[in-house]
């Protein structure tokens, strides 16, 4: 009997796959079915295992290909149906319905990570909505575009869309639209470290939501204010906002919101130097997540926070275990950007152990942050930690080169706060 052939390494499998968008679902499938080589789990390279070193069986890929076809067909069906629905609405002179269908298609594209395609749908929706008498669809289109730009890291552009949405919503007495626009403006300001602006927008949104009495909206804005206060290191204020947000969500049994909130609560507890409470909050966040529709991104975030908590406490074994769990979730959920964050943290862990081979995690993270929809912000974050890793090992020249690259990347996306942070590190290194 011939023994089974060894699996092909993912790094080799991906090298065979051209960077064509149509092959995206195949790439996602390949990554999601990859497994660590059983033989390597306890080998000395086991602790350094990254996505590239996992193995994939061509036979399994062939067998599972119908899954990829199913995903493609389902996605195309969603888009085609949305278009036909928009067309039928047009025929019935129902502009509002047409815009809603187009926006829905855009959301569908966003869900599978096709952000530029989503923008194309929203642009059409906006154009159609601008010809309508009812201006609420225009608010909805602008809001979708605003959120998309924030996701793309184009904060100023996002804020511009939310501003327009707010102006129209207020003129049309569209309270829901106005609240959402305020929240979006707050998010844009927060992302650019403009604390005063963020405070003003969230507070305005909260006033509107309180007047409307929608507990979920109130809860969201209280949570936003809590997040902001945490960034400003006003920890007591943050705790108060989070407590109020929790009351709102608990009364509505909003599982996903509860998970997000408890994650923030965990971060706050960690900042307050209460690791036990932080760990409890993260664990509870994960438990709420189990009841919500699967959100792999949020799960990875919570697990990474938990891992970081272990890392700070010097509990490397627990930290690594949590990171490996996050890795599993990110691989199964096809989240290459999040994988880059996970590997960055793993590299940081190795740096703490003064383990030079930890550089393999940063190299893998850089590669992942450049895959398909490249994210300069993620890449910059990797370079910052890579630089600090090199510095910890006494390799100052390399450390400086990586930090300079991070500064350059932050500059290219207009992230002034992080750029300053990197400059401070560089100055520290010179001193």
């Amino acid at each position: 009997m011939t023994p089974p052939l060894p699996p092909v390494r993912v790094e080799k499998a991906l090298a065979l796959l051209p960077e064509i968008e149509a092959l995206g679902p195949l790439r996602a499938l390949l990554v999601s079915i990859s497994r660590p080589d059983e033989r390597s789990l306890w080998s000395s390279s086991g602790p350094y295992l990254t996505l590239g070193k996992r193995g994939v069986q061509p036979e399994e890929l062939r067998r599972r290909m119908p899954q990829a076809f199913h995903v493609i067909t389902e996605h195309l069906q969603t888009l085609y149906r949305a278009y036909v629905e928009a067309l039928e609405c047009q025929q019935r002179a129902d502009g509002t319905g047409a815009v809603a269908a187009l926006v829905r298609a855009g959301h569908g594209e966003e869900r599978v990570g096709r952000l530029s395609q989503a923008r194309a749908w929203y642009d059409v929706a906006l154009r159609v909505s601008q010809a309508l008498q009812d201006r609420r669809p225009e608010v909805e289109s602008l809001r979708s575009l605003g959120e998309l730009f924030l996701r793309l890291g184009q904060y100023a552009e996002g804020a511009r869309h939310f501003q327009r949405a707010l102006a129209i919503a207020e003129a049309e007495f569209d309270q829901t639209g106005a609240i959402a626009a305020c929240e979006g403006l707050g998010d844009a300001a927060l992302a650019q470290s403009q604390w005063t602006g963020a405070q003003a927008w969230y507070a305005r949104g909260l006033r509107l939501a309180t007047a409307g009495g929608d507990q979920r909206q109130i809860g969201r804005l209280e949570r936003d204010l809590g997040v902001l206060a945490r960034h400003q290191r006003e920890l007591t204020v943050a705790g108060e906002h989070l407590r109020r947000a929790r009351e709102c969500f608990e009364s509505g049994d909003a599982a996903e919101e509860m998970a997000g909130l408890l994650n923030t609560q965990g971060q706050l507890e960690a900042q307050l130097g209460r690791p036990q409470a932080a760990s409890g909050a993260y664990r509870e966040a994960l438990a709420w997540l189990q009841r919500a529709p699967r959100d792999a991104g949020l799960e990875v975030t919570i697990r990474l926070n938990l891992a970081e908590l272990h890392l700070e406490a010097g509990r490397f074994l627990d930290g690594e275990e949590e990171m490996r769990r996050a890795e599993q979730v990110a691989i199964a959920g096809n989240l290459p950007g999040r994988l880059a964050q996970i590997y960055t943290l793993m590299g940081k862990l190795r740096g703490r152990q003064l383990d030079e081979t930890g550089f393999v995690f940063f190299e893998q993270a850089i590669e992942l942050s450049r895959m398909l929809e490249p994210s300069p912000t993620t890449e910059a974050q990797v370079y910052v930690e890579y630089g600090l890793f090199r510095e910890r090992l006494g390799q100052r020249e390399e450390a400086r080169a990586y930090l300079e690259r991070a500064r350059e990347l932050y500059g290219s996306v207009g992230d002034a706060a992080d750029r300053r942070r990197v400059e401070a590190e560089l100055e520290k290194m010179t001193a």
Partner: protein
Amino acid sequence: MSRVVPNGSPASPPAAPRKEETQVLRILAVGAEGGGSGGLLHGIRQWVGEGGVEIEAAPDLPRAVRQLGTGRWHVVVAVLGDHADDDLAWWVDTLRGATAAPRLIAVAAGPSMGLVLRAEKLGVLDVLSLPVRREDFLRALRRARPITEAAVTLPVVEPHAVGQYALVGQSAAMLDVYRLVARVAPSTATVLVQGESGTGKEVVARAIHINGPVSSGPFVAVNCAAIPENLLESELFGHEKGAFTGAVMRKIGRFEQAGGGTLFLDEIADMSLALQAKILRAVQEREIERVGGTDTIPVDVRLIAATNRDLKDAIKQGRFREDLYYRLAVVLIRLPRLGERGDDLLLLTAYFVHQFAARYGKQIHAISDRALELLRNHAWVGNVRELRNVIERAVIVATDEVLRAEHLPEEFRGEEATLPDRPEGALLTLAEVEARHITRVLAHTNHQIGAAAEILGIHRNTLTRKMKEYGL
């Protein structure tokens, strides 16, 4: 070379057993109130009576997590929902983070054999089928109760220190290794260390370096399997500035870094044939070239290579150069598996317990008979590395001076689990044996159905049908 001298012997007198029989068993029943669970909570309260058991209820997982954070719990009885597999994974993950690692009794409507096997692997105490029968529940609970365990005192081990590592063991197989290391170390001969993962190849390499003529020089280790293939060459030989995108400055490779010392190439079988050729040239001619460079740089290193593969087999398959093999295997040291080292297991356990107890500020002097038996019965695929890992985790969770079975990972304890709806001690049914064997073979073939079917000697369609039938 100094030998390992255990001051205590494996047959040391048992440590005093702890008195835990009187301890109140705290049970948290989750999702057991009404609904699909058919009032399980009410049943549990009646079945356990009042003596020595404390029961609380939580409606769902999030609320249970909050309650688990309020103190020490021994058992969680969780009613799994429609997605039992998913629920089970969440529960196991949650309990891992809880204080004192409570055991899980999962309750599901018509659990499949696959669910039961997965639960067993995850260390779940039992999977009970709804409606739960009194005797099944009480049987599961009996196994959850902490029992009085006899314990043996851990011997004090004086290892042969190798930097921050140590050689521990006095089995015949290890004594052979020590003798060979002592003979080869004083020379500058190239050495190939062969052994399964986790058998201590790097420790042996360090021992050779420390006891050799270049001990004052650096010991540089490179893990060839850990480094991405496209970076390995520059990692080994270095590169000049601008040699490729990302080569922002000149880099000195590991061969040069190891100058005047030892270069340890771990997992050498994972190297591409092209790179093997360059290593061969470096070994033969004692000179290298940096990537993108033109100068030839002389290197003066002692080379030690290691592998967990059978290199002769790799040569036959054309994946390893024969000439390189003979250059590396001037002296060949084969390391034994942990399973072949007899009572070294106890010595290593003792050594790691003392090491980690010191690190985590614990006082642990003994190991219970049951824990030791579980360690002895384990397959140890990862050999000493796996044992070290298991002991570190056990020391972290241990609360008194005896290391017990409950401190070992869930999967160790899972090995004791029994299938549901079957009286304790009863033999397995044919279907149960078949399901377990299929699971093992699938794991062995990395879930390749074709290969698994071939090993099992059945058609792949039959295998697929059986997998579906057993819920695997």
